[in-house]
């Protein structure tokens, strides 16, 4: 591609549709991913995330619509692994091949040498396991090797399907930091799917939420957070006094029996603290809770045709 040509957005999906039999897996999906940011591609299981990725990556043919990477269909990309790196759950490894050999098999397509294979193994923390056969790898190690494969051609765009699956808590923390580093310090565009909002909450800049193959929400993470009712956890010896104060203020309050604390919904910590001060209620702890984002996620992805429980 000539340097003067301005490529399209890293990822652009327009009217993308695909059916399996009578089921519309992806149904007229539109989305645009911002360059140099981490975008969370969220939706419950079966929402069409993987199918969207498969069409974007040329593994599956769309019934209609387009899915473009830097303005081109995947099949039109020259040396695709140097433009977009992908890690998919459905991608496997030959169990008899070592981690290093798995990368060496992919290396000629990216035009990279053995040194680069070792480099990406180091980046994902698999240096020690480089000469081990993949058959003995844990799920988390396979995830890391999948990520190393995606990074091999030093692509500008990363498409990662549920990369946190199978990672231990330490691995998840590492992944968050790594994705943010790639986007914010190395200028890469990262599109990462998940069915658990909490998993990506700490690492994404933007969110795209889909349900039943359709776009239901597209915004920055802050705008999504703004949709959530604020929740405040209060530790107090006077549960009854606090509950009645919350009710009088128009907030809902619920006792959390496991910790003996009170969860107040509908107010910010500042409001709760100020009200407690006015009414001379004793506070031992006051903390904002992010958990209500899950409620927004559930609300956004709920099936409108299904009767709420």
């Amino acid at each position, binding site marked *: 591609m000539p340097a003067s040509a301005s490529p399209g957005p890293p990822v652009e999906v327009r009217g993308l549709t695909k059916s399996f039999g009578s089921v519309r897996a992806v149904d007229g999906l539109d989305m645009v991913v911002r360059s140099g940011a981490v975008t969370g591609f969220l939706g419950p299981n079966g929402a069409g995330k993987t199918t969207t990725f498969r069409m974007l990556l040329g593994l*599956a043919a769309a019934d209609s619509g387009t899915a473009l990477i830097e303005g081109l269909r995947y099949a039109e990309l020259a040396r695709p692994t140097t433009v977009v790196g992908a890690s998919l759950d*459905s991608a496997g490894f030959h169990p008899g091949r070592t981690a290093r050999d798995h990368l060496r*098999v992919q290396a000629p397509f*990216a035009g990279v040498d053995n040194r680069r294979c070792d480099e990406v193994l180091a980046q994902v923390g698999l240096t020690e396991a480089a000469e081990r056969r993949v058959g003995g790898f844990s799920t988390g190690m396979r995830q890391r090797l999948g990520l190393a494969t995606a990074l091999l051609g030093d692509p500008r765009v990363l498409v990662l399907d549920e990369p946190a699956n199978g990672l231990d808590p330490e691995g998840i923390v590492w992944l968050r930091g790594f994705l943010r580093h790639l986007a914010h310090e190395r200028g890469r565009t990262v599109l990462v799917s998940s069915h658990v909002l909490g998993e990506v909450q700490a690492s994404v800049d933007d969110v795209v939420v889909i349900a039943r193959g359709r776009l239901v929400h597209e915004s920055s993470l802050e705008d999504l957070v703004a949709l959530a009712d604020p929740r405040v956890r209060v530790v107090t010896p006077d549960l009854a006094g606090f509950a009645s104060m919350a009710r009088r203020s128009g907030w809902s309050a619920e006792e959390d029996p496991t910790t003996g604390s009170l969860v107040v919904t509908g107010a910010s910590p500042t409001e709760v603290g100020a009200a407690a001060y006015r009414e001379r209620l004793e506070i031992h702890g006051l903390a904002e809770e992010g958990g209500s984002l899950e409620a927004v996620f559930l609300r956004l992805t709920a099936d409108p045709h299904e009767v709420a429980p």
Partner: protein
Amino acid sequence: MKPDQGLALVPALRSELRKVLSTRMWWLLAVVLLAYLAFLGAVMGFSLTTDPESMTGGLGTVTELDGRTVAETVYTLAVSLGYVFPLVIGALSMTAEYRHKTITPVVLAEPRRGVVLGAKLLVGALLGAVYGVVGTAGAVLGGLPFLLTKGDGAYLGDRAVLTDLAFSVLALAIWCVIGVGLGTLLTNQIASVVVILAFTQFVEPVLRLGLVAIDALAGVQKFLPGAAAEALAGSSLYSSTGMLGLLDRGWGAVVLLAYAAGFALLGRYLTLRRDIS
């Protein structure tokens, strides 16, 4: 093939070669093939150099063969009885990608699926030639002691025999290419191997002997792939023992290559164009 696809084959070929060299399967099968053909070569070398009168059972009805025919028959045993090895190896090169789901990274790296298949066919030919050399060498090594001690000699300096050896290698190389096409058409590894074993060990031998018994169809058996490969190698356990006729060498090559092209094209346009899950 478009002109730019020629160059595109280079990384795909390098990748395929690395796949072969990075797993143990290929070496193990080569050792088994060598041992198997050495055993068959020894058995046939012994049988064909032993006076039929002194044998109970076996090829008792066979007319006495001259020394060169015995050498040709023994040395091309890999084509008559060992071709299942390169055929399976060829099929595995594609079915293993589907079995271990490595087909996904492969087509992510090279979305032109025709290029992926083209590289596999070429590496299949190369690998098949290696198996051809191993299998042919096994038959020669196994048969040699008996031909030298009990028969009329090794005939390894004989031009016609050496030609047969070379074409035996070529026939086995093409078998491997056929395997690649078959594995592409039938991507399920178990199904692919079962079909290969059933066809080579049962269906084709029965068909070849059965069709000869029906006058109107007697010529058809020559066009079966196993018979065409034997024609290409120039000799056959069946033909030298007078049981079945073969095409001449050139037509054998044409028929065998037609099978290779047919399976590859069917695989490319029936299976390989589908969505990859």
